[in-house]
């Protein structure tokens, strides 16, 4: 089955370009991540792919069909977990699944037969008759995930699936997504949690202002865009300042130094000289760690707030 391919997608609202020439293709069975700050164009990309927003230019094929021309038919093969929960508050958990199955033209008997297994997957066995208002945030997300599976899709779109969840609930969602990937499903995920992307995604793209600014496996992206090691240096309050140290001394040890607030981030390939130097400094603390996706993300998209 074909998944999703997008070629040279453009979309502007007024004079603001939201998508400025996106091209990407999902491989069968992979988890592909779209990462980017708020307003980068992640959700617009998903909406275009589903035929809910018509792009100004570009070609989209979803499940082998051209979008938006045949988007409605293509959506029959896709499962979607939207950013905001939109479960039906008037229905129980089981009724939500039943009614949603009807939108796919599925017979009630066929959906009813799948409901116990869908609820079990969502960790909601025994909650079939629970009202939506009585479910926790994590339960609602899992029920939304189960709802997205009602048509047994091969391709899943998840728009920030773990935003607002506590760590336990996030880990459970990650576990379920790994199970789905193990079953051979293809997943398109948007997130701004870098640890989520590093854990789940086979490949990912970092987006900003409607363009891809990096694409590849998490390791490839890290290797291509940033030095392998990071030393974060903090001053002891009242004793010394990491900012002053960074200004006067850091350049001789690190290829690149960024100061954010009272912390100096040193990016380097060989950290030994810096660590020896820091060991002799009084009043400075430090943390030495390998570079991660968050470092790349902040390097490429900047540290300024996006609201």
């Amino acid at each position, binding site marked *: 089955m074909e998944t999703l391919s997008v070629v040279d997608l453009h979309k502007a*609202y007024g004079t603001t370009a939201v998508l400025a020439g996106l091209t990407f293709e999902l491989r069968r069975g992979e988890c592909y991540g779209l990462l980017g700050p708020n307003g980068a164009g992640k959700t617009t990309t998903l909406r275009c792919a*589903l035929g*809910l*927003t*018509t792009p100004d230019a570009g070609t989209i094929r979803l499940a082998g069909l051209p979008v*938006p021309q045949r988007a*409605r*038919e293509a*959506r*029959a093969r896709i499962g*979607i977990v*939207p950013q*905001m929960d*939109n*479960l*039906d*508050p*008037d*229905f129980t958990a089981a*009724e939500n699944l039943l*009614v*949603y199955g*009807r*939108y*796919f*033209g599925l017979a009630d008997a066929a959906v009813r037969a799948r409901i116990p297994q869908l609820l079990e997957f969502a960790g909601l066995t025994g909650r079939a008759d629970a009202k939506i208002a009585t479910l926790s945030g994590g339960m609602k997300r899992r029920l939304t995930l189960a709802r997205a599976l009602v*048509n047994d899709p091969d391709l899943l779109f998840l728009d920030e699936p773990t935003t607002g969840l506590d760590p336990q609930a996030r880990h459970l969602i990650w576990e379920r997504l790994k199970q789905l990937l193990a079953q051979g499903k293809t997943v398109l995920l948007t997130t701004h949690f870098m640890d989520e992307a590093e854990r789940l995604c086979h490949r990912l793209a970092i987006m900003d202002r409607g363009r891809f600014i990096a694409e590849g496996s998490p390791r490839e992206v890290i290797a291509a865009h940033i030095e392998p090691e990071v030393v974060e240096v903090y001053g002891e309050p009242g004793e010394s300042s990491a900012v002053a140290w960074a200004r006067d001394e850091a350049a001789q040890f690190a290829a690149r130094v960024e100061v954010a607030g009272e912390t100096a981030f040193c990016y380097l390939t060989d950290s030994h000289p810096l660590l020896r130097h820091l060991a002799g400094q009084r009043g400075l603390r430090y943390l030495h760690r390998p570079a991660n996706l968050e470092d790349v993300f902040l390097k490429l998209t900047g540290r300024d707030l996006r609201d």
Partner: protein
Amino acid sequence: MNPFRPPSLSLRFIPVWRRNFLVWRKLAIPSILGNLADPMIYMLGLGYGIGTLLPEVGGVPYMAFLAAGAVCFSTMNSATFEALYSAFSRMQVQKTWDAILNAPVALDDVLLAELVWAASKACLSGAAILAVAAALGLVASPLALWTLPVIFLAGLAFAALGLVMTALAPSYDFFMYYFTLFVTPMTLLSGVFFPVEQLPAAFQAVSAVLPLSHAVQLARPLFSGEVPAQAALHVAVLAGYAVTAFWLALGLARRRLLK
């Protein structure tokens, strides 16, 4: 794509209609009582109160005159409330439409489902009043059963007009304008409570283009056991309102939601 292109209608609206029906079924008894109470209070209160002061109105006792008006009034209110407040909740507050649009259902199907659902619900409340009117002996013959298709058609027209407002509304407050500037004046100009002939000529001219007038002019003769004069014209006007307003509502909704 032009958002005002023609509607593309399909039977896929049925699962969406069933969704609304299932919600209604859970709350059916309070909902029916609510729909019934308001027009019954008008009908009995005004009917007994004013009716005793009046000789016959339009050749029938005032109570019987009012019953046909009350059915149309109730149909209009029921369809309008559903297409405004309930549909707006599903579109804007609960994001029910968003969830449905992620399935293989088009916005055209969702709007059609809302239209038919609001008309169905209006039909239920109109039918309830009709039953009460019949029980009170205010209905002359079984010809009155023809009121049921009339109120369904009127329900479609008022639901379609309501959906236009819903597609435009920034919040629930917006609907107040629709009631005070359109629904309430229309109720007073359409011959629900008194014959339109009582009004000055200018008001009668306005009345002639209002959908509620045409519904009343169909329902009232049917209640007294007569075939309505110019039935085809009244049906055509109501159908015209339904089709035109639905098309407009769909265009506005596409512009709002599929941007």
